[in-house]
Every structure is written in C-alpha cells, then in structure tokens.
C-alpha cells in the first residue's frame, strides 16, 4: 500500500476524542502484520510491540495520537435539529455549511447551519458565530431523530481527503493520522532492520482533550525513551513565520524544555548522517503535544519530538505533503534502531 492510500484509509476512520473505541480494532489491523504483538489497552490506546535483539533490551515508545477533534450533541431543537458543543479545540469559523456524521445508535448524516446571513443584524455580521449559534440539521422528524440520537453522542466532520499538486493531500483528521501513518511506515522499515531495543508504537487516545492516552500509556509501559510524532503548523499565508514550517523542507525537530537535549542532539545527528533534512522547531514552554505529559511520567522519561508540517490545523482543509510523512518515518526508524539508550547511574 502506498503512503497516499495508507493515509486516506486512516483518515476515513472515525475516532473523536473519548470515543476511539469506534476505530481501535480497525487501527490494530494496520499494526498487526508488522509487529510481534498488537493490542488495544483499556483506554483504547492501540499498541504494536516489536522485540529487540539485545539480551537486555531497553524500551522505546513512539507515540502518535489517533483521536480527532469533533463535536458532541448537547441538545435537541424542534424540527430535526441538534445543538452541539465542541470536543477539542475546534475553530467554529470553519464549521458553517460543513457536513457531519452523528455517531448515535446509528450513523446520522447532517449539515451545520446557523441563522442565515440575510437575517443578521449589523453587529452580528462582524462577529464570528459561536458554538451556541450553530446547529446540525438532520432532516429527520423529531420523534424519529430521538430514536437514533442521544445527548452526548459524538459528532465527526465528514470530508474526503483529496490529492493536490506536488504530492500533497488535504482533508480532515490529517492531525494526527499522518503521525499514525508514520507509525505504520516505521514498523515497515523495522522489518528490514536490526534493533537492539524493544520498540512500542502507540496510537494514543484523547490527545485533543488533555493528553490522556499519553499519560496512561507512558506510565504503564515505563519506557527509557519516548519519541512523539505529531503535526506542527505548516507555512500559511498571513501566519507568523517563526511559528510555522514550510512543507517538503525538512522534518521539524522540537527544541525546548519539554525535550531531552542530548537525545534531541542524537536525533539531529542521525538525520545528518542519513541525509534527511531537518528544521528547528522552537518550543519555549508547553508545546501542546504529548511530550509535555510523557516527560514527567513516572520518574521522568526522556522525550524527543519529530513533526510533520500541516497547514490549516483543525479544519477540513488540513494540508500536508506525503514526502514529509515518509521522511519522518525514515528518520525515526533509523533513530530508534540504534543502540541509543544511555545507561544512567543507579540513584536511590
């Protein structure tokens, strides 16, 4: 399967934060043929384990979250309409006139509407419509709708992933199915490589709502090193250039207090040796990724992060380059297959 098909299949899965059970088993089937053991943990983190060759293997985890932002049904309105709340940091500006699936007792199609533009007062036309002003139109009579949908049901955006020019694709949930695709590609690369350490790839849950999957999985696996793969901002018009990264111009590697400086240096060295271009992604504090949680799990876990530049994050227009996904996978695969873990002195 080529990367394009892989990413598109992964994006077709629906895993709104907190409801990853909808797709965990399906996701497991992507890992299964490529590792020694694949399993779904109690929180629906999907884990693929690949045994190392060393007699005393250390443990490396590679995480990429597979949950997606969405909405949640918060009420009914007469005429087949549903009220909604956000699930994760959704941009309400990008919701009007979008298509959605409500995951109720059955999947229900709907479109997102609001008060029509010709009825807005002067001041209303200047302000962005808030979540409370939006609704889903399901087209069903109220009694039938209530048999299909309950308050609390998750809602996902419905948009295809399309192929654009220059090996780029755009659509929904590329944050962070591109990272999950990289996990699959890493397992593929590891088929042909010897690696001393045990490697766990983890597609984590509930990143968008508070890093829960990273917290639980890093605690339970107690790794010696963690590699986080997530998206960062791609270069967009009118956006601050210091905070976004051009596509196809190298893998942004995160630098800052959340990241272990020596292991990060080692990552840059591997990249240099393998002739994989990198960029420096400066994160002076909380990077907003799983690294923030994993770093302080247990007694502290050295953590590094490699990113995939993505434009228009948290909309159905998310745009990435396939080459960046392949490059991040190659880089991380080479990195984790090295005898990289330094033995630390016994403390107490």
């Amino acid at each position, binding site marked *: 399967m080529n990367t394009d098909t892989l990413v598109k299949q992964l994006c077709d899965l629906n895993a709104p934060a907190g409801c990853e059970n909808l797709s965990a088993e399906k996701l497991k089937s992507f890992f299964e043929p490529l590792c020694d053991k694949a399993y779904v943990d109690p929180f629906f983190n999907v884990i693929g384990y690949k045994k190392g060759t060393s007699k005393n293997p250390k443990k490396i985890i590679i995480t990429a979250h597979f949950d997606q932002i969405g909405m949640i049904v918060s009420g009914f309105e007469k*005429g087949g309409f549903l009220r909604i709340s956000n699930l994760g940091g959704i941009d309400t500006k990008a919701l009007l006139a979008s298509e959605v699936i409500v995951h109720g007792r059955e999947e229900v199609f709907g479109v997102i509407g609001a008060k029509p533009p010709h009825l807005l007062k002067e001041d209303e036309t200047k302000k962005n419509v808030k979540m409370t002003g939006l609704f889903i139109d399901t087209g069903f009579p109220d009694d039938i709708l209530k048999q299909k949908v309950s308050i609390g049901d998750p809602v996902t955006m419905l948009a295809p992933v399309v192929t654009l020019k220059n090996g780029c694709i755009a659509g929904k949930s590329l944050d962070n199915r591109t990272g999950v695709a990289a996990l699959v590609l890493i397992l593929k690369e590891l088929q042909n490589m010897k690696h001393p350490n045990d490697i766990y790839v983890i597609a984590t849950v509930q990143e968008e709502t508070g890093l829960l999957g990273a917290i639980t999985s890093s605690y339970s696996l107690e790794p010696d090193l963690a590699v986080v793969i997530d998206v960062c901002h791609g270069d967009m018009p009118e956006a601050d250039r210091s905070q976004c990264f051009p*596509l196809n111009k190298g893998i942004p590697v995160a630098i800052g207090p959340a990241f272990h400086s020596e292991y990060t240096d080692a990552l840059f060295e591997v990249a240099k040796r393998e002739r994989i271009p990198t960029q420096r992604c400066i994160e002076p504090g909380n990077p907003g990724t799983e690294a923030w949680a994993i770093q302080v799990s247990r007694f502290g876990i050295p953590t590094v992060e490699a990113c995939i530049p993505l*434009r*228009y994050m948290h909309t*159905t227009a998310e*745009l990435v380059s396939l080459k960046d996904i392949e490059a991040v996978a190659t880089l991380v695969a080479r990195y984790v297959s090295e005898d990289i873990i330094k033995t630390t002195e016994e403390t107490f």
Partner: protein
Amino acid sequence: MMRKLAELTMLDGISGNEQEIRKFIIQNLADKSLKHYTDSIGNLIVKGKTDGSSNLKVMLAAHMDEVGLMVNYITDDGKLKFSPVGGIDSRILIGKHVRVGKCKIPGVIGYKSIHLQDKNERESVVKIKNLYIDIAAKDKENAEEFVNTGDYVAFASEPVFFGENRIKAKALDDRAGCAVLMELLEEVWPFELYACFTVQEEVGLRGALVAANRIKPDIGIVLEGTTCADVPKVKEHEVSTVMGEGPVLSFADRTSIADRELFYHFLKTAEKEGIPYQLKRTTTGGNDAGRIQTSGTGVKTMVVSVPCRYIHSPVSVLDLNDLKNMLNLVSKALHILPELGR
C-alpha cells in the same frame, strides 16, 4: 427527476460559465426531436410539444448558473486570491474544498490555524481578502501551470440523500428549477411553450431579459429555489418559507409583483387538486421574473419556488416532496392555463 437533479448539482456552472449545464440538459432531453436554440449570452431555449389548440406563448424560466468564486490573483508563493461571483456568505468559506478552472484542479480554502489567531481574529469574521485557495503549488510559476486568473471556482460538494426525503447538494438554487423544467418538457401542451434555461441570474438577472425579448411571451413563469429560514434562532416573522410545506407561491418580491390573475389561478389549482402549497411570507429577494415582466411591452409573470435551506452554500438542502409537489402544481396549473383567456 431526483436522479437528474443530483446529476445536475454535480456539474459546475458559475454565472458566465454555464456550458456544462447546458450540454447536460440538451443531452438529456427526453424527446430528441424538440427544437432548441442557444442564444448569444448562453441561454438555452427549448420549444415544447404543443397540440396547437392555443397560440398563447408561455415562457418558463429556470436559471442554470450558481454562485461561486473566481481567481483574481496568484501570490508569489502560489496561493490563489479570489472574488465571489454572486451572493456568498464569507463566513462559510474556511475549510471548504473547491474545484478550480476547466481542469477542475482540487484545492482547499485555508486560513491560519486557530492556534495562531489572536483574540480579535478568533472572534471576528474573516474577510475574503484574507482567505486563499491552496492547490499545493510550490510558487506562482508552478501554480500558473494549472490555473489562471479568471478561472471559475466551484464548491466540491457531492449530493447526499439524507434524513427523511431530503437532499443536500450545492447549486440546488436553481438546478431544482432546471430539473422541474426538464420534466415539464416531456408533456404535450395546449399552447406554445418555451422552456428557458437562463444564464447569469446570480449576478443580476442578465439572461432572462435577453431570452424574454426574443420570445415575447404572453405569460412568464419562473421556477426557483428560494430562501428557507425555518431553523433555530430565527423569529417566526423572519421565516419566509417552511421546508416540507409545499411549493412556494410569491405574491411579490423585491423585483416583481405577481400578476393577480395568474397568482390566484395557481392558488386555486393547488386547492382544487389538493396539492400542498405555501405563500412566501416575505417580499425580499429577487429573480428572473423581475426582468421578464418588464421585457417587451410587458409580460404577466408569476414565481413558483422550492424552499432551500443554506442556499448559496455547498450544503443547500431541499425536501424532495416539495419538489415533486412543485412539478405537480405547475403542470396542473399550466394545463388549464388557456382558459384564462387574454
């Protein structure tokens, strides 16, 4: 009719660029022997079958064009700037998928991520001048291999049948009217019927005027998609039409006042035949009737519409029963039209 409607919405026909729609209608005329003519502005005029019992001239009009965008500038980094063609609510644009130009190059409308917006940007409506179409071109030169300024841009939105008897699609305004008009061309009429599939309604009712001047009809009936605001947060007096309550008869709108005799003829026909109908409760909005009415020495006009929620967006919605009832009402009312006399 519903399959035809769905197919019609899959075609792109932004005002001034209606040829795909025109071609589809010609190819799908039930009776290939019908005479048709395309005028200089692009209106498609089809002469219906008649039994010759009356020489009354009736013009039926539905517009082929839809709202969309047009590329007006390509930036150095290969992004496309654009202008709206027709009335588009700029609030709906972020995150939408589009097709650019004749080759239908896929693109997305992007805006910088919410994480990078300041408080003011998060709360205010983004202006079109701050939005860009991204086709993932490397730079301007690369973009110009695929697109050009002046290229038309259509929303990428496939028709979906959903809920109970509903369809979601782009361009239901006025492919719905086109679909009804195509059905009407399958019947034999007791007068001279001119089916006009008009152009450029959305940019100022341009096509209908030219068509009416050529045909010089006695009566003009416009088949439209009209606003439907029967949704939460809207006060009752602001609701112009209600979805599912039947085709809409307009006594007046911003561009024309219906001929009273015609209006009551349609109303009485609906009541006599037991066809659901509703009256448009506001007089806003305009359509081709405004131009047809004042063409030549004056034409008696009337507008029949189907309610259309989220009109002018990629997810406009209509009720299939409303459309069936619209076809039924127009057909029944027209068959006894010559009794009105002149």
